[in-house]
């Protein structure tokens, strides 16, 4: 019996190790951000804040354009979240149910395209955006983000639609629904969980993206959070405002952490269910 108990304790310890490993860099930012400014620059660093203070958080919003960066990111994230769903849902339905010609090809080719590192697209897209005069316009990010997310959305929704019993649709058709009506009134409500999962992943992607945002938003007032924060620096290397930066890191990562923790079941089920087929 003790052998089993030891094994269980060992297992618990390993699980704790995994959780600790996954969270410590984030937690360290939290701890740093709660320290008083002079304590942040203590040598050697203190582990826990000796005099916890929210001063860094008060100051982060005085980091001149930080709020603006957050708003820009939100704007792009919302735009990007809606579009792939709007384009992806009918297309996925066409692939899954209508067996549209070329559907499978689109699915596969799209996944290959979205897999490529963004550096491949950056110059040609930059040229296109420049030609359209869309530099420093949210659409300069929303459109590419939509395209980069569409394949994954398409793939997730297609495999979900395939699992839905087709009798439902047939019954609805007999009741006089048009095909669009079926999609709108029968399929989409059923697909809400899958749509939500896709939306969360897309929102996280767009909140996180760096390279395109760095290149397509050249004006400071249009920078998104990751780029804006990467640009923050002090007058010299020794004046980097780490107190405010750590608070800013927490402010920009906390929403993602809460989202993942709150919707964990949906995200993990959405990504692992149905099997990822190579």
């Amino acid at each position, binding site marked *: 019996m003790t052998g089993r108990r030891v094994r269980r304790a060992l297992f618990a310890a390993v699980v704790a190790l995994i959780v600790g490993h996954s969270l410590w860099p984030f937690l360290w930012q939290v701890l740093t951000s709660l320290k008083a400014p002079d304590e942040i620059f203590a040598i050697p660093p203190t582990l826990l804040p000796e005099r916890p203070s929210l001063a860094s958080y008060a100051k982060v919003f005085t980091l001149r354009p930080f709020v603006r960066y957050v708003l820009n990111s939100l704007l792009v994230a919302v735009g990007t979240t809606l579009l792939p769903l709007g384009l992806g849902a009918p297309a996925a339905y066409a692939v899954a149910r209508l067996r549209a010609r070329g559907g499978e090809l689109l699915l596969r080719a799209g996944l290959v395209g979205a897999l490529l590192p963004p550096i491949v697209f950056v110059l040609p897209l930059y040229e296109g955006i420049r030609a359209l005069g869309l530099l420093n316009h949210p659409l300069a990010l929303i459109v590419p983000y939509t395209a980069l997310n569409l394949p994954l959305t398409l793939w997730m929704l297609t495999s979900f639609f395939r699992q839905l019993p087709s009798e439902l649709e047939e019954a609805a058709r007999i009741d006089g629904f048009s095909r669009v009506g079926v999609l709108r009134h029968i399929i989409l409500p059923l697909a809400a969980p899958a749509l939500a999962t896709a939306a969360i992943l897309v929102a996280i992607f767009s909140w996180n993206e*760096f390279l395109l945002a760095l290149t397509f938003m050249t004006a400071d007032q249009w920078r998104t959070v990751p780029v804006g924060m990467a640009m923050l620096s002090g007058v010299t290397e020794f004046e980097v405002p780490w107190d405010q930066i750590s608070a800013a890191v927490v402010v920009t990562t906390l929403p993602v952490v809460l989202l993942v923790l709150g919707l964990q079941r949906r995200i993990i089920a959405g990504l692992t269910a149905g099997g990822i087929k190579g």
Partner: protein
Amino acid sequence: MRQEGLLYLLPAAALLLVVLAAPVARLAWLSLQEVEVTPGGGAEFVGLAHFARALADGIFHRSLVTSALFTALSLAAELLLGLGMALILHASFPGRGAVRAAALIPWTLPPAVMAIGWRWIYHDSYGILTAGLVALGLLAPGTTWLGDRHLALAAVIVADVWKTAPFVMLIVLAGLQAVPPELHEAALLDGAGPVRRFTMVTLPYLRPYLALALLFRGVQAFGVFDLVRVLTGGGPGGATRVVALALYDTFYRYLEFGYGAALTLLTLALLGLWAAAMVRAGRSRLDQEAGSR
């Protein structure tokens, strides 16, 4: 019905064509031109001159080697870590969902922002890492992680593995669901130990999933940009100048669009080779057996 389906597909297909396919075609065209960046400047056909130059470009070759090294070390570490985490979190225990979510968090955080966080962790005076290792007596004080030619690449790799191991874990978790439990029971009855059960039963089923993880991660690691750009900027002394930074420099710092396009295509070709290799490796023995029957 099929015609109607096409209609539904069209908007998505058009967008993918414009944003993902057209750029590659554009790169192919650019790679054969010398592009004048002056406003209203034209382009001159130079044939394969850019590719010839690329073959002799020592700086570009070094960035390929750096990327390959980064990719190989990152992949090896995150594969082991991701596999280990998945095997543990596949077991059922109370609170498993929350633990899985916690394990997934590094993958979901913005890499550029977390790179700033890592810079703080690696800071030579105020960083927790140096202080912690010095306190444990494992390190001489004054180590500059990001200022040392070898340590800098290691530091970037650690940050990358932290972020991407959860992705491998996720794929492996999906794979573990595909392993029929009966096989494990049968192996148990045959008296197979845990190691043997893993290699004989689990691994063959995981193989396509591992290949998929390697495919995705290999391509992404080879093209890594955010993390390196923010953490080290490619330094010190080009020790972490990965290929994506080199390409970015060629476009936006050297203003050589044609040459940059050629370098991008060469990089793409390498990625294609890797992808093909992984697709081959992913064809599991189970599939082959099924095919031969």
